[in-house]
């Protein structure tokens, strides 16, 4: 969900940005972080806990806690809470601790 209207603050219209999540098309807006764009699309489970594989979501929002690590354009362990969304990004959930090749 997004706050479109506010009694004091203005939220000017921002340019839409197309990206994919798990292969499906989604729209974010210019200035979003990846995690913010996913939330606006109703995706709140960003990763999973490493032992019990329970869903993990937006937590520290400042790039410290690793709860939002996802695979972006093939790169694992991207901190989606502080990484700006760009046109055409392919975002997927990450299984485990991140596989590097």
């Amino acid at each position, binding site marked *: 969900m997004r706050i479109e209207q506010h009694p004091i603050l203005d939220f000017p219209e921002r340019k839409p940005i197309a990206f994919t999540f798990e292969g499906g098309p989604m729209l974010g807006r210019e200035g979003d972080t990846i995690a913010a764009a996913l939330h606006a699309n109703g995706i709140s489970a960003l990763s999973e806990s490493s032992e019990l594989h329970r869903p993990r979501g937006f937590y520290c929002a400042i790039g410290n806690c690793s709860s939002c690590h996802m695979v972006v354009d093939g790169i694992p362990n991207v901190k989606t809470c502080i990484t700006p969304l760009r046109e055409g990004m392919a975002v997927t959930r990450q299984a485990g*601790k*991140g596989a*590097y090749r």
Partner: protein
Amino acid sequence: MNAEILIIGAGISGTAIAWNLARKGQKNIVVVDSGYPACGATGRCGAGVREQWATKMNCLMAQKSIAFFEQANEILEYPDDVEFKQEGYLILACTPEEDAQFTKNVALQNSLGIPSRKVTREEAKQIVPHLNEKAILSATFCGKDGHLNPFKMTDAFYRAAKRLGVVFLFPETVEGIDVSDGKVVAVRTDKRTIATSKVVDAAGGFSGEIAKMAGVSIPVYPERHEILVTEPIEKIQGPMVMSFSKNLYCQQVPHGSFVMGRGDPGAKHDHDISSGWRFLDEMAKTVREFLPLVAKLRVIRQWAGSYTMSPDRQPILGTVPEVEGFYLACGFSGHGFMFAPMTGLLMSEVILGEPTTLDMTELSLARFHQNQAIEIEKSVV
């Protein structure tokens, strides 16, 4: 208070000595530490264990210690797991001199039954697929080598010793050792005086100071070594990767993090264990040359600890001529963790007057006083 045997230091050596004495039926053993178990060099170490050494004594110490680590959970009846990951050490030869030396090392190791072997660049790449094989000439590999969790290994010795009645006093700082007529009579701490006739100096970086309290001068000094750990990733590296000439060791621990370190040739001989940006910079550049993929990972944390260096980079174990009842277990030069099972066994044999499993001549303090040629271990980072 009194103690039959008082051990100074509750690191891996002190706890291993205590357990070995206790399992042989020795009563009234007291271990004193100014902090807590594994709070010094043990808890700060890289925790690799290897049989690939250049001197016969180090090979034997390591070989028998690793045989113990393989069974440690069972022998010590440890309810947790010491996390022994036995996937080898890949030691890189980067210069023609190293390549030649490693051929000799492997011949020595093989003669002692250590299953190490020389491998080509291409074989090294198969063992560690993300290795930049162009940066090396050859390598040696031994699958018996590996890595343990130093906190859990110390905890295993500590719990097993405690079950057998060993008393641990911490935090309690030793302030003096009373010697009378050339014999140890008591140890004074900041809390009490403990009457004892046998004291073991297993104080790691502070073993020189402890020895001085008993009036004994030993040729050791502490030296800072730094280390860092990265974020965890899925497993990509089995063995420890190590280079002596390029000053590097790098291991992926079971949790998925990479732990890596290097020595600082300019390190002062003091108790400094602070962390610096220079190490971060040099470590990152070094690891990038050999393991480029690891350079992509974020550094989570860095720390440092003290090696206790001896003149020949081999431990000093046993009695001292000047003071009866004063025993040394120090000077491990960065490999006290991996030798601990043998340290514990040999020290218990010396203290109880039993025949020793290995000839202790080469490990005694006396080797430095006799003007004899000592063989210096070069396989140290």
